[in-house]
């Protein structure tokens, strides 16, 4: 096992070199790189030990518990990334993740292995990949919507005053936010195979998997991530928009 850890040494030497080179002029940046590298290393090693134990059990309830844990963490991440104050943001993120990601992860897992789809070995990596990739889109989408709403509140008020429904008066910002959230995903899909080989496929290729099998699995994953991101942003934005108005239809604040 020690040999495996020693394999990380050259990479860590690179990180230290970067840190020491930049630390005088760009202290914050250099510290952030170092901190992120430490966190990645520690978190992934701990995850590996945890997964080793979890995978031995093959218990479905562990899958479910870990899925809930990861989803709650993803929702907390959305709150910490958000600069705008949104009422009930944690619950909004949680519900949108559950409604958008869970069904996709379950279906994807069933597609790969019908008999063992609920086992931790199958489900957890898929939930992790889907949540990790959609998180960014949801954060960007909510932030874009709130910035537009704050800056153009008078426009919303004018449209409402003319007789537009609350949905109609914010539709433009809703569409922009949806686009802003999904654009990084679309860009990534367009560059796939031409500019980039994604991590999951690269890992399989390095492990001598059949390239076509690796490609098919990667395509499925990319489409699932795209669907999950879109659905998750859409659901989250619906709730965020609803939170800006009172049940009787007035704006929550002027």
């Amino acid at each position, binding site marked *: 096992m020690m040999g495996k850890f020693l394999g990380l040494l050259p990479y860590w030497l690179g990180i230290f070199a970067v840190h020491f080179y930049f630390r005088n002029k760009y202290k914050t940046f250099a510290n952030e790189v170092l901190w992120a590298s430490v966190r990645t290393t520690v978190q992934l090693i701990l995850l590996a030990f945890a997964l080793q134990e979890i995978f031995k059990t093959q218990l479905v309830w562990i899958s479910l518990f870990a899925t809930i844990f990861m989803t709650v963490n993803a929702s907390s991440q959305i709150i910490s990334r958000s600069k705008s104050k949104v009422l009930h943001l944690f619950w909004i993120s949680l519900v949108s993740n559950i409604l958008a990601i869970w069904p996709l992860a379950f279906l994807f897992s069933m597609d790969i292995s019908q008999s063992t789809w609920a086992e931790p070995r199958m489900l957890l990596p898929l939930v992790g990949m889907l949540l990790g990739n959609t998180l960014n889109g949801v954060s960007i989408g909510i932030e874009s919507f709130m910035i537009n709403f704050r800056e153009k509140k008078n*426009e919303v008020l004018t449209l409402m005053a003319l007789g*537009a*429904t609350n949905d109609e008066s914010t539709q433009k910002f809703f569409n922009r936010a949806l686009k802003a959230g999904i654009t990084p995903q679309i860009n990534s899909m367009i560059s796939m195979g031409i500019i980039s080989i994604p991590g999951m496929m690269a890992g399989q290729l390095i492990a001598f998997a059949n390239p076509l099998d690796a490609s098919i699995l990667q395509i499925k994953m990319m489409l699932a991530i795209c669907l999950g991101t879109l659905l998750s942003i859409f659901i989250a934005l619906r709730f965020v928009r609803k939170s800006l108005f009172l049940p009787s*239809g007035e704006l929550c604040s002027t």
Partner: protein
Amino acid sequence: MLDVKDLKLLNSKIINLKAAPGDVFLIKGPNGVGKSLFLKTLARLVPKISGEINLGGLDSSQFAPELWRSKLLYLPSDVSFTEGHSVDEYLSEPFLFERYKYFKPSFNPKEYISDLNSSMNLLSSGQRQRLSILRAMSLNAEILLLDESFSHIDPVLREETFSLLNRWKDHQKIIFIVSHFDFQTSQFDSTSFTLK
């Protein structure tokens, strides 16, 4: 008939008022007293603390918010518009809403505009204010709530706008005006209503 009973605004001011078709109310009061807040509360853009607003004997809560707002149409002093829209697009924008899909306007504001293709960005604040009033008149509201809607309009255009509004209110309409211009004697047979 509009009947405002013990309406308590968010700033805790309590208002009682009755308005009949053809009435023009000039809302007065010092800055910050809540004149705009009163109009926005009437239009159900902001919540009230308590009290009733009845229109034609029906309480405001019996109307869907967008239906109520189309009947009591509020115009803010700052005219906002979609960036890049022409005058024509600005005037037509409300007709994209579900509410006005099958609505045939009795008043056509385009008859009073020389260049419909001008960009809204290029118009002065006064021209935009005049357009927003013309657009509001085309939507067949029962009550217009004008919040400093003449502040940037020059005297000539203002006279013309007043004259159009005067004809509009004769169709059994009610107008509320918040303005620092003291024009009630020359233009409208209006009732002053002072918020303290």
